């Protein structure tokens, strides 16, 4: 029978999963993913080997005894790379389909536009998550092997939380890129806009923040160089205020204490962290929420001529 003979109406979740599965398999075979995984691994390995080299010069008693000592510097470097992971999967998520004409073919099926966005988000979360967790797992394994260190529950909690914050951070950039991808017709434009935003938060905003602080507090004197000095406390406050909307700043604010394990007895307290930095947690959650909602609105209302 023509028309309805062999159809079964699908619940939205199933439609989302069909799209997510296809997007995920596309990502898995893409050079883009493997290049990013390679960059991540290379970075981690470089970090571990450079530390290994510098520790080998130190006397025995100065060498790392805890895994978190090795990973302490990971936050700032992941802050540099993770956004690209998000951007790489978001910048052409919708615009590429528009450019290649597949969007019309897709939307001519009995699917809601939200299903398309949701499918892409589910797949991106899975890909970014797997990349981050795998890279961290491999780096931890290499560290344990090279230094002969063990990992305890607290280290595990810290590293897991670090990976979760990194996932949220990368996903924030993904959501912004996804938004650009829905609003702009060309993937190239979307990529430029996403990188411009990254450059703004990573390079321009810290510079502006520093200039504002120097203008308001004056250039620091030699005596004020101690991190505990009033000058630096005020500087940090001003810096925080001027970068209140910077995702990068809040990611660093959160991952700093997670990775900084002062001693073996220093047990990580998630409750303390969330009560200390509620705004950072909020901003890191707010970006994906706002930009995913904006992407929904733009994409569902957009006319595909």
């Amino acid at each position, binding site marked *: 029978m023509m*028309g309805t*003979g062999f159809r079964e109406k699908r619940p939205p979740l199933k439609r989302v999963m069909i799209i997510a599965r296809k997007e995920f398999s596309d990502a898995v075979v893409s050079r883009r993913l493997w290049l990013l995984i390679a960059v991540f691994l290379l970075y981690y390995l470089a970090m571990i080997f450079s530390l290994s080299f510098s520790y080998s010069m130190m006397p025995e008693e100065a060498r790392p005894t805890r895994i978190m000592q090795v990973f302490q510097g990971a936050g700032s470097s992941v802050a540099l790379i993770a956004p690209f992971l998000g951007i790489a999967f978001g910048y052409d998520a919708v615009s590429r389909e528009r450019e290649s004409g597949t969007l019309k073919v897709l939307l001519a099926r009995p*699917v809601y536009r939200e299903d398309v966005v949701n499918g892409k988000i589910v797949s991106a979360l899975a890909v970014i998550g797997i990349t981050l967790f795998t890279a961290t797992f491999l780096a931890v394994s290499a560290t344990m092997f090279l230094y002969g260190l063990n990992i305890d529950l607290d280290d595990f909690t810290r590293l897991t939380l670090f990976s979760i914050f990194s996932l949220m951070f990368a996903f924030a950039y993904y959501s912004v890129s996804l938004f650009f991808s829905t609003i702009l017709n060309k993937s190239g434009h979307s990529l430029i806009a996403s990188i411009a935003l990254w450059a703004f938060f990573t390079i321009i905003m810290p510079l502006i923040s520093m200039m504002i602080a120097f203008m308001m507090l004056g250039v620091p004197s030699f005596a004020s160089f101690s991190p505990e000095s009033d000058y630096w406390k005020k500087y940090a406050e001003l810096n925080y205020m001027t970068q209140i909307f910077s995702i990068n700043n809040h990611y660093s604010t959160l991952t700093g204490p997670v990775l900084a394990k002062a001693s073996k007895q220093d047990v990580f307290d998630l409750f303390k962290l969330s009560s200390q930095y509620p705004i950072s947690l909020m901003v890191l959650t707010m970006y994906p929420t706002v930009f995913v909602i904006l992407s929904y609105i733009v994409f569902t209302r957009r006319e*595909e*001529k």
Partner: protein
Amino acid sequence: MSFVIECENLVKIFKGTPPVTALDNVNLRVPKGSIYGLFGPNGAGKSTLIAILMGLTLPTRGVARVLGHDVLRESLEVRRKVGLLPEGFGFYDNMTALENLKYLGLLDEIPGDSVEQRAREVLEKAGLGDRVNAKVSTFSRGMKQRLGIAQALLKDPEMLIFDEPTVGIDPDGVMEFRRFVREIVKEGRTVFLSTHLLRDLGMVCTHTAILRKGRVVAQGSMEELTRKMKSSMGYSYEIRVKPEDLERLLKEVENLPGVFEVRLEGEGRISLVSREDIGGELFSLLSRGQYSVEAMVSSKPEWEDLYRFYSEEGG
């Protein structure tokens, strides 16, 4: 007669400075089981109309129904029953033909356990049975068109919409496409196609609408439109005889009923235009008068003539 597409005063204005009226009070009725050609130049509004019918774009005003479903409120139902081949086709080049169709088939609500079989069936039907596992990036434009038809047929639709299906396709591919369209209409489906290539697809259509600057300037069955045009423009004939017969023939054809224009074209040629079909009378005149006729041609209107006539009349 039942209609599968009904548009009433459909208006689409794209915002901008200045705003662009893509569709201007379009009224259209597409009979069930027809091959309906929507003709018009680039920018006439054909793709916009198709986008509205498929729920890809919202109309500014007016009503459109496809297979009895309102395109605004029941868009999902429309997309369940209508197969679309968009302009440029649109495929995932990194995937094989079968992978493309399996993915789209699942979105068409074909059960997972039968989607591969269905994909293979339509690929076979589209003449791509031997290219099932080839990557789409290796396909020629003609093969992509056939794959496009296959994807449109996947859901076993009641109606197919083709947007500029023969652009960039070689003559063999166009002939094949016409054969294919006739075949799928025999199965009880309706085909609605848009094109600016009248010569390619005009002859396959049973009904047509001519769209110009967003307005439907003519619509109806091909016979109706041709008859109306001929009665207004006249029937044209060209006769070539030996030069010594020219003067005598000229006088005789001028006296034939309905002839309102006679011209000497040189090289023994006379062209004439009549309000009625006088082919029979001309033939008997030429035999009766024992003219040494070298050629007699009754010029049939080309699709371009049809389009030009109605465009000028309507616009």
